[in-house]
Structure formats: C-alpha cells, structure tokens
C-alpha cells in the first residue's frame, strides 16, 4: 500500500496528500521568490539593469545555457547526471563550423549535428544501463572524449567559416521586438519538453525512474529504455546548444562548451529540481538560468573585481546544491 502510494505520488497523476502545505509550497516557489528578489536587487544596484537593451542582453546570454540545462533537467529527474553535456556542446559547435566550411546546407548540417550529439547521449545511456555504473563517472569520461573529438573535428584550432549562410549569421542576433528569437525558440523547446514530461507515458516513467528505480522496475517499466531516452534527449539538446553557440560566436571553438561548466547543473538545481531525482519541473529550470544570467550580468554592470565574481559564482553553485539536497524530504 505504502509503495503504491509512493508510486502514485511520484508519477504525479493524483496526489492523495494534496492538502494545503505551506512548507512544501515555499520550497516549490523559492526559486521564483529568489528571482523576483534578485530582479529588485539588480535594479537597485545598477541603473542600467532595467533598460530594454540590457534585458535583451540577459536573455541572449542565458539562451545557450538554457538549451543545455533543459537536457540536464530531464537526466537529473531520472536520478542521474550528464556531465558530458559541455563536451557535447563543444563537439557540436565545431561540427557545425566544419560542415558549413565544407559547403553543407543548413538543414542537412543541423540534422547531422543533432544525430551526432544524440548518439553521444545514446552511448551514455547504454553504457550506464548495461554496466550499472554511476552516471557521474561515465559521463565525466564521455565529456573528455567529446572535448577530444572537438579538437579532432576542428583540427586542433578554432574553425573560421568563410561565406556564412545568412540564416546562421542572424540566428543569434535576430530579435522579435525586444526579445531575442533565440530565447523564443528556447521557450518553445521548454514548452514541448514540459508537455512531454507531464502528459506522456514516457514522461511519467522518467519521473518514476528518478523517484525509485526498483519500484519502477518491479512495476514493469523498462528502466534501460527510459534512462537511455533521457540521455538521448540530453544529447539532442547539447546539439541544439552547440548550434546556437556557433551562431553566437560565429566560429567553431573546440573549448566552447567549457564556459557552461557547472552552470548547467546549477541552473537545474536552482530551479528546484532535486539532484536525487523524481521531483522538479523543466519550467522551473528557466527560472534557474535567469537567476544565473542576472547574477553574471549584474556582477559585470556593478563592476565587481573579476576574482570576486568567480568566488560569488562558485558560492552560488555550492549554495544551490546544498539547498537542493537539504530539502530532499
């Protein structure tokens, strides 16, 4: 009975304990409260924060992180982690550059890049499932493999593309009103993923896997397929992030993904998704990336010393993870 309740709870269809619970609500809403507070703080610290051009900048600056963090959210909900994302973003960026440099059209280029990045995810999922190893270790190794592949693809140096297609040239700089098109595409992906996780069977299995792998297994869920799906989606989003990284810098930098670093994980946990899996929402990851983007933007605008910036950024990541694990129960 208890197991059944837990399971029903996790797949989130009906909530027997759906009484008003102030503490739980505060936990869920704390990222939103944090964002609002940060918004007010940033506006009072810098007189240029609340200008249209600066807010446009922030949305542009968080978009690549947003694509990468979306994939990470799915993997973290399954109770795993995907550290290969930043390597995969680098690999995809250099692949975009090399394919374009070799005269490929935009559409086949995008398809090949997404296929390659998803394959990395597929490998992650299969290796972790069949050998039953901590995802942390495997994806860490895969990250190094991907950085190596980036250098191999790029021939050891940054790839500069001549005669760039206008589509790629403007992908990151186009705006609809004041909102970057890149961010609108990002919101589109989040909406699709939100519906996928909440309304489809596979989405519910992804939550269930993170809630309790054994319960999922005895309930007849094919754990390997669910986990591998999560990793493929994560790889796919790394590919999308790579395409946008290229369009933002207009060259294939083999180290491009390293900027994302631990921010990918931080954005997810700041958004309230638990590292232990099973709980959280892709929508809240948007809050996470906005919080990180606003902090980095404000630190620049206020003119903090660069070393103070690094310390603050590091402390925020630690703080976010501590909060995430403290509120597990």
């Amino acid at each position, binding site marked *: 009975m208890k197991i059944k309740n837990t399971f029903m709870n996790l797949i989130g269809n009906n909530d027997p304990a759906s009484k008003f619970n102030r503490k739980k*609500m505060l936990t*869920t809403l704390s990222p939103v409260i944090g964002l609002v507070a940060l918004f007010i703080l940033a506006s009072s610290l810098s007189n240029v924060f609340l200008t249209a051009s600066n807010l446009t900048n922030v949305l542009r600056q968080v978009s690549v992180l947003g694509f990468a963090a979306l994939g990470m959210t799915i993997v973290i909900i399954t109770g795993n982690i995907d550290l290969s994302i930043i390597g995969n973003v680098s690999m995809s960026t250099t692949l975009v550059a090399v394919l374009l440099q070799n005269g490929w059209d935009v559409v086949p280029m995008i398809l090949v890049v997404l296929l390659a990045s998803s394959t990395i995810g597929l490998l992650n999922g299969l290796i972790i499932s069949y050998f039953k190893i901590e995802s942390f270790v495997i994806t860490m190794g895969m990250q190094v493999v991907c950085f190596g592949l980036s250098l191999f693809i790029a021939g050891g140096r940054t790839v500069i593309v001549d005669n760039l297609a206008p589509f790629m040239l403007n992908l990151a700089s186009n705006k609809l009103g004041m909102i970057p098109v890149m961010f609108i595409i990002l919101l589109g992906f989040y909406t699709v993923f939100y519906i996928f996780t909440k309304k489809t069977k596979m989405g519910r299995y992804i939550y269930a896997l993170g809630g309790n792998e054994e319960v999922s297994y005895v309930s007849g869920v094919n754990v390997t397929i669910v986990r591998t799906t999560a990793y493929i989606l994560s790889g796919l989003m790394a590919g999308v992030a790579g395409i946008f990284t290229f369009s933002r*810098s207009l060259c294939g930098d083999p180290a491009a993904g390293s900027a994302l670093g631990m921010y990918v994980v931080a954005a997810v946990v700041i958004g309230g998704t638990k590292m232990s899996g099973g709980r959280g*929402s892709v929508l809240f990851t948007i809050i996470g990336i906005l919080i990180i983007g606003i902090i980095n933007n404000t630190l620049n605008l206020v003119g903090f010393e660069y070393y103070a910036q690094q310390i603050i950024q590091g402390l925020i990541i630690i703080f976010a993870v501590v909060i995430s694990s403290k509120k597990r129960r």
Partner: protein
Amino acid sequence: MKRSLGKIVVLVLVIAMLLTFASCAKEAEPTSTTGEDFLIGISQPFMGHPIRQAGTVLINAWLEEHPDVEVMVTDGQLNAAKQIADIEDMITKKVDIILVAAHQSPTLVGVLREAKAAGIPVIAFDRTLTDPSVQVGMVVNDDYAAGASAAQLLVDKLGGKGNIVVLQGPAGNTTVTLRQDGFLSVVNKYPDIKIVDDQVANFQRVQAVDVFENILQANPDIDGIYCHNDEMALGCVKVLKDAGITDIITVGIDGQKDALEAIMAGDYYGTIRKVVEFPAALDMALEYLKTGKTTSMNYLDSIPITKENVEQYYDPDAVF
C-alpha cells in the same frame, strides 16, 4: 493545489517581465554626465597568467595617477561566449571606450561592430582583431613574429640541425596558432631540423613538467625545445635541471622576470620579449577620449633575449 499555485506564480512572473520589457523601452541615461570623468572598459581574455596579473598591477598604478578615470575590468575566463557577454555588458553600461584583448578574435567581430554602432570606440591590446575597421588604435604584440624570432634563436644555436620538441598553449587559441605558424615558417626552411614531438601543455608550468618528463622518456635524443611561453619553458628547464641534463637548448616567448633570471643563471637559453600593453593602451585610450585621435597603431617590438643582452632588459622591480 500547490502545483497550480506554482503555475500561476510563474505566469504572473512572465507577464510582469513582459510588462517590464514594454515599459522600459526608453534607454538609460549615459552613466558619465560630467564631461571630465571617463569610464574605460577593459575586456581581458582570462586572468590566470602572470602577464594578465602584471597588467592589473600596472592598470591600478596608472589609475592612481588619473583620478578622473574609472575602469570596468572583465575576465573572459578563456571563453568566447563569456567575452562576448562581457562586451555586451560594457555597451549597456555605456563605457566611453573599450580596450579588448580577444580570446578568439573572430568571435568578437559581431559584438565589436555593435559597440561601434553604439558610438563606443575600440582599442585592441595584446592581440589583433579580425575586423580592424572597428578599432581606433591598437597596442599589440606580433605573436607570429615572436614565433619566428624564437625559431631563429633556436635554429641558429643548434647550427641548423637537430631534434626538437614543441610545447603548445591551449589548442585553438589565437596566440597559440600565431606563435606556432610563425615558428614553423622558419623551421620549415631547415630540412635537418626535425620536430620529434609536439604536445599541448596549456601555457602552464606544472603541466609542462609532466608533459616534458614523458617526452623525455620517449625521446632521449633531443637537442632543442620550443615552448609557446616562458611558463612552460621554465617547467622544462626544471625537468632538465633535475635530470642533470645541460645540453638541451630551451627557448620560449614572453620575457617574464623569472625567465630572465633563469637566463642569467644559465639554465634557460633564450626568450622573446613580450611587452605588457599597460599603461600604453590606457594612455592611448585617454588620448583618444581627449583629442579624438590616436597617434600610433604599431606593433610592439619582439626582442630576442639571451645571456648576452639579458642585463639590459632585467629590472628587479618589474611586475612581469
């Protein structure tokens, strides 16, 4: 209940943000209202190398003498996207002029054109820009020439023949590409010079120690070493010293203080002097802000330094 409440709050927040967008379409007033105060943006590619730290010391010293100037220094953290974001933030903050050392020059073309469109002049320091039309001046080191000079120094000392190894900086870095291409442009003219190994040690002394120890195991017959910077060269010098090897010639680039000391001690053969761009770049910026023009657009000289001329360049009080 709680879930739907969460959704409502997110919705409200999104609406609030959109309203903010709509309401703040008016741009901010320029930050410097009094004509005499200047805000100079300095976009550094990263802060982890001694030459950047020396830059900071020299910038601070210069600021003491110029109380009417403020600076906004950003750290690109060895990343193109971070540096683009840094410069975007400088444009929003409406700095009076931007000094930039590109981590990857081609990546900055777009954002620097935005700066130009916003009426903010740009001065390149340390490294050249891919699109020089955005700059009003430059104070840069010619890394290609430095690589070629280092090669000549090594080849001459070896008498035009021998086995050499190369330790490179981070793969893909603009400086690395130039220092390597400049080096190869000279070395390729000497068929008896053989590059037996070519590895990356990321400009870092500690990594160079590990990498070079391994190279030495695999290739006992080495005559010369070329490192893309002094930090790595000093790592190799340490390995050679520990192993008691004295007949391998090491050359590097930068001419930092402890490298010159190693040259004086006879442990290190030679280096190519790189000039720290500060305060020259700041002087140029201030000149432009006050007069609307810059006088010089030159490369800084690359001077080979060996034991014969090291005394002339060594300054015990130098910050780099």
